[in-house]
């Protein structure tokens, strides 16, 4: 027991968090599935048995078989190959849109929390205004005005998710500002920028990582939703959401067209949610 305590205190906070994460079966499962999907996205050209856009009239709506493990769609395209290539759109949308949210939300949130006063009042009202528009409806509106494409869908999702990061960063900065180490850094005469970037930012990274992981899950669903509505990845390029949109019309004749893309979205989103929940528990031991 003493050895365990000694080991726990001895390890760095990061290593302790990794150990706590590794003890959670759900988080480990989530992490493994996320890595699995990332590998599929990276290795798509080598893994996909067929060209994802190649049509074949002899395979129109072919049921799952040895030739087409997941069946074929209404144009005879191999569903498995489209799922494999579609992983790229989903992972890319999740990562890029959350990166946009982080790139916008964290600096704005830090500025708001650090400067306070009228800057805070103004940006908080703008954030409230953005949060008043339901996430997907705002993303749909932005994607509609920007024009339908995967890039614009990622921008729309990224902008729509930004206020959450502004709010979170602001709240974390406000809490950190009152801490002794920030007071000490200020008393030593450190410039504001250095206090914000070198002292506050490293201390608020943990909740941002948790939120970013959960936001990727939301972004994957949002990209699939926009593609389902025809506002994301454009045909014939494969995307799980657009595959479901087509599958809707053939649900009675070719249910496999709907089952696999949906299952893929579900698995990826579930994994990011499990990983996010696990990270929250691992990085913030108070949250159980």
């Amino acid at each position, binding site marked *: 027991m003493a050895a365990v305590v000694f080991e726990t205190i001895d390890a760095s906070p990061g290593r302790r968090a990794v150990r706590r994460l590794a003890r959670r079966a759900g988080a480990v499962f989530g992490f493994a599935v996320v890595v699995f999907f990332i590998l599929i996205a990276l290795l798509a050209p080598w893994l996909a048995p067929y060209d994802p856009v190649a049509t074949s009239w002899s395979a129109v709506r072919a049921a799952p078989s040895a030739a087409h493990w997941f069946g074929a769609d209404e144009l005879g395209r191999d569903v498995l190959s489209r799922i494999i290539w579609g992983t790229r759109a989903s992972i890319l949308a999740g990562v890029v849109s959350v990166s946009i949210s982080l790139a916008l939300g964290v600096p704005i949130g830090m500025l708001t929390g650090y400067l306070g006063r009228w800057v805070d009042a103004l940006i908080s009202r703008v954030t409230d205004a953005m949060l008043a528009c*339901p996430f997907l409806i705002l993303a749909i509106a932005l994607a509609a005005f920007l024009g339908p494409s995967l890039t614009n869908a990622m921008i729309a999702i990224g902008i729509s998710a930004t206020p959450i990061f502004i709010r979170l960063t602001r709240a974390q900065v406000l809490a950190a500002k009152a801490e002794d180490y920030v007071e000490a850094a200020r008393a030593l005469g450190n410039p504001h920028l250095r206090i914000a970037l070198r002292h506050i930012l490293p201390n608020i990274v943990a909740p941002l990582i948790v939120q970013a992981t959960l936001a990727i899950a939301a972004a994957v669903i949002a990209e699939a939703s926009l593609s389902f509505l025809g506002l994301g990845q454009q045909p014939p390029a494969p995307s799980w959401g657009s595959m479901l949109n087509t599958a809707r019309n053939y*649900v009675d004749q070719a249910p496999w067209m709907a089952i696999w893309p949906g299952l893929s979205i579900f698995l990826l989103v579930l994994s990011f949610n499990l990983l996010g929940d696990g990270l929250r528990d691992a990085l913030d031991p108070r949250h159980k």
Partner: protein
Amino acid sequence: MLKFVLQRLATVIPTLFFVSILIFGLQQLLPGDPAIALAGEERDPETIRYLREKFHLDEPLYVRYWYWASGVVRGDLGDSVRIQKPVTELIMEKLPVTIQLATMAMIIALVIGITAGVISAVKKDTWWDYGANVFALWGLSTPNFWLGILLILLFAVQLGWLPASGYVSPFEDLKANLAAMIMPAFVLGNAIAAVLMRHTRSAMLQVLSSDYVRTARAKGLDERVVVMKHALRNALIPVITLGALEFGTLLSGAVLTEQVFTIPGFGKLIVDAVFNRDYSVVQGVVLFTATVYITLNLLADVAYFLVNPRLRH
């Protein structure tokens, strides 16, 4: 009470102002001449001229905003270029369908979410608890348009119990209306049930460990009375107010659910408007949604204030 409401109203007005700027600003994202883009696919010169005049497109931006905002304040959200009808009229036409769908979804979410949350808290760390948590994760991770397709496959295609899509007014045939709405309502309620389950579980766990519940148990009261009468009633207060905040999820979900089940509601209105490049309708729907969301938020705050005596003192 009045002071509290006035204070909350004071924050609502600037928020609404920024919402209006945000939504007006959407128009500026359109590439090229907004009049041509707003005119839709046909690009009828007459329509373009009419739009340029109507939206004062030759005037500076702030003047255009002023004209647009003063129309909005009077309830004029503009006209649909495609359907040639005022946007407000279109919204009011479609709204009852979505309200019915949202109400049914909320009832389903409350029943499933609260029941699962209570069971999960009372039977903490048992298989019931794990099961309820798995259900919550399932609800949060399942895209509702996929769930909709799966339910159509099972209940409409395989079993033939329910219609796959379509809408019948409840005033025409209530039974057919309920048969058409039950699947979409379940699909929409599913994700919210998961959120409500998590809120109920944590609120119940907090209340069940409080002193007054211990006192109630010490008095020898039946466990069912302790849970249902003493604990649940108090735990439900934050759950119901948080439930009001799920309105956004409900409307976002309605967009997809109505698309899957071909229900002619509010969600379908915005999707059709997007494809018809009917931008005034898109702006109108977003503005209307945001205003309703802000109002519901305000009402939830006031309700919370009313039911929580500690806030009043």
